[in-house]
C-alpha cells in the first residue's frame, strides 16, 4: 500500500491538467490522528493534499450523489461497489466518473487501536502490515490484522469492481472467511435473548444519525427520521424509538448494502450498527444469491419480479 498516495496525487493532477474531470474526490489528512477527511481537489496544485493510508474508512461514493460535473473519485473495493449501486439507481452517470481504483488491504478500526494503548495518540506511522502509534511517553507497533475493522476482516471484495485507473496491482482476495459469522451467532439465540442482544447493542445510541449521514445509500432529500408530517418514527431516546429507527434504517439498505462499514466508522458511540444490515445481506445472499454492487448488468433483487422468487412466508 506504500506508494498509493504518490500515485493518487499523480493521477489526480493528470486528470485535472488534461481537463478530464472538474474535481477529484479523495482523502486528506484529518485534524485528529486516524481520522482522514473526504476532500475535494479542484486544481492540479491541490493534488498534493490527497493521501491514502489505513484510515480512509469513510465511503466516498457518498459524495457523488446527484452531482452534475465530471468527477474523479478514489475508490477502494467497497466504494466502487457503491458507485455501481449509484449508477444502477441513477444517482450518477458512469460517463461522469473517472474511477481511481485502490486495491485495499483493509481499514483500521480507530477504537480498537485506542483500546490497546494508554494515553492519547498524537502520531501514527504506517508500514505495509503494521502501524506504529505514539503519544506522550509511549510508542507501540501493532499488526494491522489485529486492529482491522470487522467488515474489513471478513471482506472478500478488496479490489475495485469497476475502475478507469488503478493505483497498484490487485491484492489477493481473502478466502476462507465467514462473512456472516456474527449473524449466525445471533441466529442461534432464543427470541428473548435476541431481543436483549439488540437492546444492549443500541442502548448507547444518541440518535445523532452519523450512521445515516456516512452511508452512501442514504440520499433521500428528506429522510424519514427528519419528516414530521407524517412523523414516521418517534424522535425521542425511548428504546422503542431507537430500535424503530435502527430497523427502518436497515430496511432501507436491503439488497443495496455493500458492508463498507462507513456507518460503524462514523458512529461516535461505537455501536455495531452493521449487525442489522448484515442480516439483510445474508438473507439477500441466501434467497437471491445477491451481493450488492458487483455488476452494472443486473438489477437488484428487490427491483425485479421473478416467478421463482421465494414466497414461502406468504400464505
Amino acid at each position, binding site marked *: 500500500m506504500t506508494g498509493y498516495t504518490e500515485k493518487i496525487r499523480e493521477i489526480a493532477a493528470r486528470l485535472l491538467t488534461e481537463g478530464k474531470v472538474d474535481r477529484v474526490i479523495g482523502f486528506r489528512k484529518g485534524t485528529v490522528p486516524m481520522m482522514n477527511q473526504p476532500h475535494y481537489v479542484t486544481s492540479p496544485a491541490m493534488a498534493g493534499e490527497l493521501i491514502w493510508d489505513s484510515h480512509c474508512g469513510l465511503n466516498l461514493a457518498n459524495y457523488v450523489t446527484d452531482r452534475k460535473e465530471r468527477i474523479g473519485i478514489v475508490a477502494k473495493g467497497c466504494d466502487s461497489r457503491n458507485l455501481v449501486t449509484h449508477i444502477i439507481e441513477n444517482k450518477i452517470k458512469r460517463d461522469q466518473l473517472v474511477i481511481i481504483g485502490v486495491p485495499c488491504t483493509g481499514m483500521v478500526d480507530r477504537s480498537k487501536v485506542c483500546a490497546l494503548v494508554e494515553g492519547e495518540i498524537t502520531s501514527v506511522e504506517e508500514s505495509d502490515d503494521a502501524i506504529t502509534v505514539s503519544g506522550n511517553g509511549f510508542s507501540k507497533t501493532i499488526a494491522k490484522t489485529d486492529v482491522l475493522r470487522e467488515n474489513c476482516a471478513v471482506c472478500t471484495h478488496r479490489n475495485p469492481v469497476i475502475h478507469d485507473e488503478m493505483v497498484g496491482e490487485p491484492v489477493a482476495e481473502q478466502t476462507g472467511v465467514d462473512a456472516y459469522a456474527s449473524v449466525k451467532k445471533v441466529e442461534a439465540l432464543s*427470541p428473548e*435473548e435476541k431481543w436483549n442482544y439488540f437492546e444492549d447493542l443500541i442502548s448507547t445510541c444518541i440518535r445523532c444519525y452519523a450512521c445515516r449521514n456516512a452511508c452512501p445509500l442514504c440520499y433521500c432529500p428528506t429522510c424519514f427520521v427528519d419528516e414530521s408530517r407524517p412523523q414516521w418514527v418517534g424522535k425521542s431516546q425511548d428504546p*422503542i424509538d431507537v430500535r424503530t429507527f435502527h430497523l427502518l434504517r436497515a430496511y432501507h439498505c436491503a439488497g443495496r448494502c455493500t458492508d463498507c462499514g462507513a456507518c460503524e466508522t462514523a458512529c461516535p458511540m461505537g455501536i455495531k450498527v452493521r449487525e442489522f444490515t448484515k*442480516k439483510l445481506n445474508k438473507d439477500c445472499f441466501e434467497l437471491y444469491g445477491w451481493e450488492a454492487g458487483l455488476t452494472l448488468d443486473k438489477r437488484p433483487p428487490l427491483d425485479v419480479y421473478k416467478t421463482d422468487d421465494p414466497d414461502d412466508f406468504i400464505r
Partner: protein
Amino acid sequence: MKNLLEHTGIAPGRLHFSWISSAESTKFVDVVKKITEEVKALEPALNYAKTEPKVN
C-alpha cells in the same frame, strides 16, 4: 422483513403475510381468523410497546 424482525427478537408467529384479492372475502376471513388464533396462543408481546416516553 419478517427475517430481520424475528432476528432482532420479535417472536416467530407474530408477523404474518398474505396476498388476498378484493374478491377473496372468504380467504380474508380465514386468514384473519387463523392469525388471531395463532397470535392469541402466544404470550402477550410487551417488549415492543411504548408505554411512557423515557425522560432523562
